[in-house]
């Protein structure tokens, strides 16, 4: 009996896992299992459940990184995703029926915007470049926006609807509009078991849709899976990217072991001596975080120009020139930026060209052309 229990415990506590289990933890685990089991018996069928649609996580991600973050109170469902998609493309979310989420997160532009600053319904420009929406279910730290101001995907989505320089609406108004429409109440019923529409359900549905926006089929991904071979130029570009004397991009933007191509953390990559946008520092108030922005993924750069939080660089050549010879010192500059007094490590023209070829190999045409993600 005793050894059986120990074997059971050994199964529960995988070797080299980050789980820290002790007897107390296991006891609590068993107890909560028991309670859950009992509760389920008490009140079955009172909770409406739409058709489950677990995220299809690409093999490359399954093999290398942690599972996606799906909040317990917002599981992926067929009906929820379909509703979220409809909302995402619906201009009725904005005050004057002119803007949808998709107006600034344009599918063919990698769900971002080719304008440096998107234009809100009043014609007023925002002050940041729209962010591409991809692989956001794998943002484990759950800090969203360039400055980390939203702490979950659901919460992020409350903002654009009421932001005066974006959709400039009120949630009360959105709820009323959707409620009085001919189509939405039924769709909410199917997705959430209620015809009563509120902002929480709207953001839940949209989050379900946005979580399906997974990109993992670039040339580089295919090479990782052994389906194609990279060109010599792309391969050398990867070496430049990984080499500390040249690119050293991987310490922030990841490497084949991290197929997200971002650390989802915040850095100052040497754009400015003085900041007119404090980024993360504006959210935390910590002067050591002034001018830090969230590292963007390098996937789909082919479609997501212009670049950086303010869209200051129109081309990838400009981005590479920045890291090579355009670095500017400021107090919070990331220590990974080198020879700053000379503006950077001065890449050769051929290394620059190869680096660019590699970066473009991370772009995924099937992602932007996926009919599931189109209106």
């Amino acid at each position: 009996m005793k050894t059986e229990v120990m074997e059971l415990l050994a199964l529960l506590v995988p070797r080299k896992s980050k789980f820290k289990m002790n007897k107390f933890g296991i006891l609590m685990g068993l107890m909560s299992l028991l309670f859950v089991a009992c509760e389920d018996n008490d009140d079955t069928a009172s909770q409406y459940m739409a058709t489950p649609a677990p995220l299809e996580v690409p093999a490359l991600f399954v093999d290398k990184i942690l599972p996606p973050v799906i909040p317990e109170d917002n599981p992926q469902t067929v009906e929820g995703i379909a509703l979220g998609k409809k909302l995402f493309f619906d201009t009725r979310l904005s005050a004057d029926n002119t803007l949808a989420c998709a107006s600034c997160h344009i599918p063919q532009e990698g769900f971002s915007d080719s304008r440096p600053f998107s234009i809100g319904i009043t014609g007023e420009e925002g002050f940041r470049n729209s962010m591409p929406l991809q692989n956001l279910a794998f943002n484990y730290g759950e800090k969203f926006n360039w400055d980390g101001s939203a702490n979950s995907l659901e919460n992020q989505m409350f903002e654009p609807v009421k932001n005066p320089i974006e959709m400039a609406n009120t949630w009360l108004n959105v709820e009323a509009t959707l409620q009085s429409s001919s189509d939405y109440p039924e769709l909410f019923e199917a997705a959430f078991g209620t015809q009563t529409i509120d902002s929480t359900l709207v953001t839940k549905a949209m989050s379900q849709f946005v979580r399906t926006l997974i990109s993992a089929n670039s040339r580089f991904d295919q090479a990782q899976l052994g389906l194609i071979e990279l060109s010599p130029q792309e391969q050398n570009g990867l070496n430049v990217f990984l080499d500390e004397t040249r690119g050293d991009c991987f310490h922030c933007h990841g490497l084949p072991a991290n197929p997200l191509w971002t650390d989802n953390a915040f850095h100052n990559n040497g754009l400015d001596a003085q900041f007119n946008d404090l980024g993360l520092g504006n959210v935390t108030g910590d002067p050591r975080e002034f001018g830090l922005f969230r590292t963007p993924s390098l996937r789909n750069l082919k479609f997501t120009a212009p670049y950086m939080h303010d869209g200051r660089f129109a081309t990838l050549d400009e981005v590479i020139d920045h890291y090579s010879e355009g670095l500017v010192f400021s107090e919070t500059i990331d220590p990974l930026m080198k020879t700053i007094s000379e503006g950077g490590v001065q890449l050769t023209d051929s290394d620059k060209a190869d680096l660019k070829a590699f970066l473009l190999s991370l772009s995924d045409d099937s992602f932007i052309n996926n009919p599931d993600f189109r209106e």
Partner: protein
Amino acid sequence: MNKIALLCITASLLFACNSDDDNNIDTESDPVSVAFQFTQNWDGNEIQNADYETTTYTTENGTNLKLSKLNYLISDITFTAQDGTVYDASDYNLITARTGGNADFTPGIEIPEGNYNVSFTFGFDDEDNQNAAYLDLNSADGTWSVPEMLGGGYHYMRMEGTFEAAQGNTETFQYHTIRANKHSSLPPDMTTLEFTEDTSFVVDLGTIEIGNSTQIVVGMNVAEWFKNPNTWDLNVNSSVMMPKYELQIAMNENGSNGAFSLISATQE
């Protein structure tokens, strides 16, 4: 069956797990888990979050530096009983010193109370240092993997910051320790790697009495990485340390020569 009955059965199963090994250790009471805390100091002055990017430290060589980031990996915390029985949870812990992330760590193993020699590995030894093998480390905030052209596996430590260069300007440094890797020529690529050498090391904390609520505080004296036996000059080596075999050996020598020590072992 009612809830209470189930609970009683569960509890009795767990109590049945008492160790009755015949070591010269306490076999009467329940086996215990042991809590660790990892702290950092500069020659005895504790380094707090507020010190990062603000406090200036002077290296043995006389260079002034500020720290920005200090992340390091420890693994294989091992308890060796006096009769030679080895208890090893075979787990690992990535510490983010600045924010205190994972500073508190309880290995996933329970051992009988008694006296043990306690040790852990700084970094991953070669057996554990498998390329891209740990999903949580691959996903860690702050890249933890090492490029395959440098032998793959994982960083042991990323210490980063700025220093006042001899010319008076501020420069950055990246003191990254990984498995030493020797190349036929630099810059490295997939064809230049000649061999790798395990530069993780075992930190021996000595004999510690483990009771039913022991907390072990481990300290890293960051100054030691720049001190002994190799007086480190950041003006000479501040960057591109990963692919340089000799530097990895030198960092291993400094780290294994007293960078870590037992601060305290207390019974709560």
